[in-house]
């Protein structure tokens, strides 16, 4: 069914394609799916990824940029030399595959714990913090005029959303209250410079090879806003996967990240970066709470979702370490 439609679609634009291998579903909830397949060609197979929202799931979650915007951003990034998959095709109505796109599959590792621990990446790890700074500089430097239509976010708007999400949980979390209060007080106001913000730039959303960063994935939370947001988010303790003394994804120091960013001709506001790290820590804590709610109310009654609810406390200890450090 889906395989036949996809094969027909690929044959219509990939010259010389003789078919596809059976697509394997990589991830996805009800509204968005990621499939892996090869385009079969006499000169050798070509690895591809399909990202789509099946028909009937047109409405993306309010925070998502939408699949076509995501495709456009990845293509722009690719053309600007930012490590990114090449977008091959945007789905059309006549393909009958829903909305979405097909992109080149970039080989490498995305599982954070493997990247942090396996020998294969030992040579890359010490270089990654700096490289990530350079990659972010590339993303923030993409020309505004070429970008698709995106949400414009500020810390104040985001805090309003956090507050609403937190109140919706209906469960008192004094540490989250403390963080909300701290963030309101330290909100630096709108950024003088507004750029493309990736929105989920972190260890786990990057394809890494022994040579370093190969691709930046998961652009669905992209928006316009304070570029320092991405620098703060990549440092959130939850994305260090146990390597807590290496703030940048468990790889290296903030100084290395900043050095890579500065070397590409951009400026760093360290106070803003720290503000966004606190924001990001609370954000992940609230996302854990949101997943717990979906477990309780919604169609996804899985054990994994349930257990994620019990990970909110990880962000509580990290917020305390940031806002009320002990015995330092």
């Amino acid at each position, binding site marked *: 069914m889906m395989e036949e439609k996809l094969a027909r679609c690929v044959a219509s634009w990939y010259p010389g394609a003789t078919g596809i291998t059976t697509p394997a579903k990589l991830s996805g909830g009800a509204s968005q799916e990621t499939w892996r397949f090869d385009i079969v060609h006499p000169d050798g197979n070509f690895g591809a990824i399909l990202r789509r929202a099946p028909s009937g799931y047109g409405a993306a979650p309010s925070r998502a940029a939408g699949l076509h915007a995501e495709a456009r951003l990845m293509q722009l990034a690719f053309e600007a030399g930012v490590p990114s998959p090449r977008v091959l095709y945007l789905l059309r109505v006549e393909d009958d595959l829903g909305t979405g796109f097909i992109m080149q599959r970039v080989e490498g590792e995305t599982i954070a714990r493997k990247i942090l621990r396996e020998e294969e990446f030992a040579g890359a790890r010490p270089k990654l913090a700096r490289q990530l700074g350079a990659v972010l500089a590339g993303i923030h430097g993409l020309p505004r005029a070429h970008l698709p239509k995106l949400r414009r976010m500020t810390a104040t708007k985001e805090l309003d959303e956090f507050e609403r999400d937190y109140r919706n949980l209906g469960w*008192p*979390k*004094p*540490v989250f*209250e*403390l963080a*909300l*209060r701290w963030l309101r007080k330290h909100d630096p106001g709108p950024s003088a410079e507004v750029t493309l913000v990736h929105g989920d730039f972190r260890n786990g959303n990057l394809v890494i090879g022994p040579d370093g960063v190969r691709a930046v994935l998961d652009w669905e939370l992209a928006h316009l806003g304070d570029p320092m947001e991405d620098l703060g988010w990549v440092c959130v*303790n939850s994305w*260090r996967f*146990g*390597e*807590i003394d290496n703030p940048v994804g468990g790889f290296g120091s903030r100084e290395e990240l900043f050095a890579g960013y500065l070397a590409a001709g951009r400026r760093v506001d360290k106070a803003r970066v720290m503000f966004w790290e606190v924001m990001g820590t609370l954000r992940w804590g609230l996302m854990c709470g949101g997943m717990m709610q979906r477990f309780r109310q919604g169609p996804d009654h899985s*054990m*994994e979702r*349930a*257990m994620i609810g*019990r*990970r909110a*406390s*990880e962000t*509580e*200890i*990290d917020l*305390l*370490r940031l*806002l*009320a450090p*002990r*015995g330092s």
Partner: protein
Amino acid sequence: MQDEPTPIELTRAVVDFLREDIAPMISGHHAFKLRVAINILELVIRQSTLQEGSDAKEAERLTGLLAMNGSLMELNRVLAERIAEGALDLSTAGLAEHLWQTTMDKLAVDQPNYASYRRELARYKEK
């Protein structure tokens, strides 16, 4: 009074069965799901073991901080409101200590292997 074995002992027996007899038989996605299931049961065991003691101490601290009595839920709601209003903050005597202790007690149940928790636990034991 209910009879023995206790819920903790019963759950422990299920964990041992899943880990020793079932885990070696399965692989792939089901093996992953089984690990999650075992983790859940172990969390339940930790909570059953620790909650009574930590709840009692938390209620005692809250009663002192807020100068009022109530259920743990009521006391936490009042604490949350007072922090939101700014009536209590980190300069309030005992608040930081209370939040730290309460959070440490949560992590002891939720994620005792979380690196930040282990670091803070070691720091606490040094004193």
